[in-house]
């Protein structure tokens, strides 16, 4: 029974991590209209820079300064922000669908680099021995609860931040030029600058939350940051309701619980491969059905922003 509970704790924790990723994606894609298919790459940069700068157990790398954790988080965040800047500037010169593909391309390049630059990243072996925050204080299985709480506190903080951003004039302008860039420019808005700022902000945030993912999975390998992370985040956002506030969180919760439920009977030996595959089948079916019957997702944008004029009058 306790194995089941710990399993559920894990699922809810992972749901929280994806909720955060989906909220960040909602900012850049849902509100600013930048269809980022490369977020896994930005998370990878943050995760790797974090682990490289903070770990002290593995000696066979070129660079292992052993910084304190908070410094590693900042380093990872900055690195992802810079990566976003490098990716964003050329990508924004190409329009619409091309942005999708160039971001995907960059993510794949980052993943290949993480495999091949073994002297820095330890290649496909990666890092698997490192300490996590407060491990001395909270021990054993209680740590999973601690991690769960930490993740969901951050979910709340990010949610509050997104509400502030969404309801601001900045957020309003994003949703404006997302749908009609020429009109925005004809009013004097420098829309490309706003896009780059948003993309870099998203990068900084992906990098800052990457350590959560690292602490949850407890290893850092290139296979952690495949396109699957990107697609699951997108699915969560799309199901939950793109461009709303609650959508990303709802979508992540539903998606993770539904797909991980298939892994419940994990101990059944030869069924394991089938069940791992069932996860993908369920993921695919959910996405297809939501697109078919409720393409705007569960939480709608128009409900999220209804009666905006009253907020100023208050």
């Amino acid at each position, binding site marked *: 029974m306790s194995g089941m509970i710990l399993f559920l704790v894990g699922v809810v924790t992972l749901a929280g991590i994806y909720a955060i990723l989906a909220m960040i994606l909602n900012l850049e894609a849902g509100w600013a209209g930048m*269809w980022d298919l490369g977020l896994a790459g930005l998370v990878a940069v943050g995760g790797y820079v974090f682990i490289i700068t903070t770990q002290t157990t593995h000696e066979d790398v070129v660079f292992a300064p052993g910084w304190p954790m908070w410094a590693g988080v900042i380093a990872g965040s900055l690195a992802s922000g810079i990566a976003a800047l490098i990716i964003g500037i*050329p990508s924004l*010169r*190409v*329009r*619409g*669908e*091309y942005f*999708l*593909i*160039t971001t*995907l*391309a*960059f993510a*794949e*390049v980052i993943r*290949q*680099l993480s*495999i*091949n630059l073994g002297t820095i990243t330890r290649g496909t072996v990666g890092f698997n021995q490192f300490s996590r925050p407060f491990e001395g204080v909270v021990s054993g299985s209680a740590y999973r609860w601690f991690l769960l709480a930490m993740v969901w506190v951050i979910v709340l903080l990010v949610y509050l931040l997104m509400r502030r951003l969404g309801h601001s004039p900045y957020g309003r302008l994003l949703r404006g030029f997302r749908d009609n860039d020429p009109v925005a420019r004809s009013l004097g808005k420098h829309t490309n600058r706003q896009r780059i700022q948003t993309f870099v902000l998203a990068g900084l945030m992906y990098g800052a939350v990457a350590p959560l993912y690292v602490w949850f999975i407890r290893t850092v390998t290139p296979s952690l940051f495949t*396109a699957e992370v990107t*697609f699951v985040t*997108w*699915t969560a956002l*799309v199901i939950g309701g793109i461009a709303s506030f609650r959508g990303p969180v709802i979508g992540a919760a539903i998606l993770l619980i539904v797909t991980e439920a298939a892994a419940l009977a994990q101990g059944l030996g030869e069924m394991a*491969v*089938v069940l*791992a*595959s*069932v*996860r*993908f*089948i*369920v*993921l*695919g*079916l*959910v*996405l*297809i059905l939501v*697109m*078919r019957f409720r*393409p705007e997702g569960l939480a709608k944008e128009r409900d999220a922003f209804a009666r905006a004029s009253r907020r100023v009058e208050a």
Partner: protein
Amino acid sequence: MQNIIFGLVTGSILAIATVGFSMIRQTEGFINIAHGQLLTLGAFLGYFFVATVEMNVFLAGLAAMVLVGLIGVLLAIVVFRPVAKSGPLAQLFTSIGLAYLLFGLIRVIFGANVTFFPTGFGSRLDLGPVNVTVGEILIVVVAAVVVGLLALFLTQTRLGTWIRATASNPELARLRGIPVNRVSYAVWFVASALAGLAGVMVGLIGNVHSELGWTQILIILAAAVLGGLGSIYGVLAAGLLLGLAMDLSALIIPTSYRTVVAFGVLILGLLLRPQGLFAAKGRREA
């Protein structure tokens, strides 16, 4: 020199896969991520027909092609048609969902292991300065033949002309009385069959495994965008170019960087010419 041959082979396969992908983008208006899974399906079906049913390789390839073509049409009717009214992004996400669904199904049916085509095409020949396998020659020849047939089909037949008209201007085509539904089914069949054929080819020179779809769709996307989503010839050229780039680069850098090279070429290409190398008039972005 040897690498040029490899490049041509890779490029031919990529070109075949991407032409189908590009046709869907042109006539149906969205990016179909599930195209990679149709390729994988073709590879597994080809393997199945050769290894289990013990068909002759050519027949197996043909059977796989036709079967994948039909499956493509079925998927178009059941999965994509109902979502068409919600726009290209909804269709894109539907295709991602379908890709996962097919991926899961393929793993369940065919297993997650890696297999090889049990054929005798590994015998090597020496042609002057290069050393090729019969399989490799076969692939390039078949690819060329198929492309030739496709070109003839598109230019000389009525259905082909209708397809080209719909690809360049769907609204006008409809107004002119072209049976857009029939054209749509034809395009799905041809595009999917081509994906299936590419899968069989991949199986012939490499191995067959369930992850094929994901790695292939990335390079297909690169070739499609580089070729300029609107032009069939552009896409063919881009496919060959990327194939050559990927294999020639193996001379200087580790082969694990192949996809990186493909994307590097893509990014470079887009920076120089944001609309793709051979962009035809095609659809105009609003």
